[in-house]
């Protein structure tokens, strides 16, 4: 798989990572190399093979649907770079 520069930029946009022009060029080669290498998986016949979803055969745990935690607004915003009262502050999204 050869990844072109436009694809690298599109992926970086999806991942919300700004990249420089030099990074766009070097990532093209690196991503192409890694993707070409993983392509060998295509040769494995996986017809009728289910995807692995868990490593050990176990039932997903269940618990009673009651509140066991909470009332920690101070803790939750404690590490935020910008807050007001108990809200996270972000640049304006809607006019």
């Amino acid at each position, binding site marked *: 798989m050869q990844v072109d520069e436009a694809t*690298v930029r599109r992926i970086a946009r999806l991942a919300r990572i700004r990249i420089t022009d030099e990074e766009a060029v070097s990532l093209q080669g690196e991503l192409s190399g890694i993707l070409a290498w993983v392509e060998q998986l295509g040769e494995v016949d996986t017809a009728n093979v289910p995807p692995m979803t868990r490593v050990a055969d176990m039932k997903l745990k269940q618990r009673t649907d009651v509140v066991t935690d909470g009332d920690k607004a101070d803790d939750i915003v404690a590490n935020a770079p910008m807050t007001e009262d108990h809200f996270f502050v972000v640049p304006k999204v809607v006019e």
Partner: protein
Amino acid sequence: MTDLTKLTLADARDGLVAKKFTSTELTQAFIKAIDAANPHLNAYVLPTPDHALAQAKASDVRLAKGDARPLEGLPIGNKDLFCTKGIRTTACSRILGNFTPTYESTVGQNLWDAGAVMLGKLNNDEFAMGSSNETSCFGPVVNPWRRLRDGKIDNTKLVPGGSSGGSSAAVSANLCLGATATDTGGSIRQPAALTGTVGIKPTYGRCSRWGIVAFASSLDQAGPIAKTVRDSAIMLRHMASPDPKDSTCVDLPVPDYEAELKRGVKGLRVGVPKEYRVDGMAAETDALWQKGIAWLKAAGATIHDISLPHTKYALPAYYIVAPAECSSNLARYDGVRYGLRLPGKDLIDTYEATRAAGFGKEVKRRVLIGTYVLSAGYYDAYYLQAQKVRTLIKRDFDTAWSDVDVVLTPTTPSPAFGFGEKSGDPLAMYLEDIFTVTVNMAGLPGISVPAGLSAEGTPMGLQLIGKPFDEGTLFRAGQVIEDAAGHFPVPTRWWA
């Protein structure tokens, strides 16, 4: 007085109970050793001496009363991937900045509840992505081991492996009695092999992942790096537990692994997979493997050739699954709720600027690969195919378990390498995990035990792979290898 930092965890435990020394004396010896070594080795990113001495003092009160818990007063290091309440936790990434958790990881809490003392936070590859500890935002860790050239010490700096390079270096340099670590593709076992220490990645689900910074959630698992097999058995017992806060953590009792050690390997069936004899494997690696086979045989085990036909697909499948899961997990670093934030003209601009400045090169590379393989139109071809291949890798082992109880392989293709030798080529670095990654893909437990020295005088390890939740057998077989191979203390403390 003898150097207390040279003790094993088991001997230190017995010494404390016998009142030969106090936890405060022991802790002070380590604080002094860290002060002297850290400028050279960079194993700790945040030593916490005051915290350690306060814990040690409390332990001394309990020890004096004869009220010691299993790890009472034993100083250990904690990988910076484990959240520590009130103590900075960064995953060695700029994007977490001065993140100070308001909670403790379950594994950490289990250790402190057992009486252990925390000496500080240990360096690792950024978000545990790396095999050399060169991607940490705090700079690389230096391996305490150095190569020998014509009988003289070569001053080339070697990597301690990764991602748990701070843990492996600190344990081998006697900067703690043992350390926490995590393993997603080999990050406990490979650094253990490169530093002459013991490292075990337990079965997926044995240790809780709660409060550990996530990399690839279906692969991540915590475990210890320690000086001996016994020490690693003691530590794992007190790290593992059921945990309602991690739905993938199993509700199984944790056995007394230390009690297993004396059981030996008489009648144990050991599998030797032909697929691990890879092209270009160093002759000394193969020779070490043969020695391991001979040691287990001499101790009463039987040896069986086995086949794990999908082995060669484990690494490429890993490099789809791990980046895919990391791109999802790392989406949380948005500059809004914690960590670094760079101002932007709008919200998307803020995200993009923050993540560009906060993530290092390897992390960006993996997030982008993950985003690509999960993007519209590619999901089936990459992620789904990789998860199906994972089923086949697991089936290979399931088939093998009808003939053998444990599998023996080398831990790494070669011993410790120098700074920069592999960091320029992502694929060369990824090959470091060729023998360890299958174990994560299948969710199995694996232990690396030091087994010999390379021609360069640096340590090499052997890996034992076990059935799900059969860590006990790994400790038994690991003990046999350790008894035959001996211990591998760092020959010269060149930093002191």
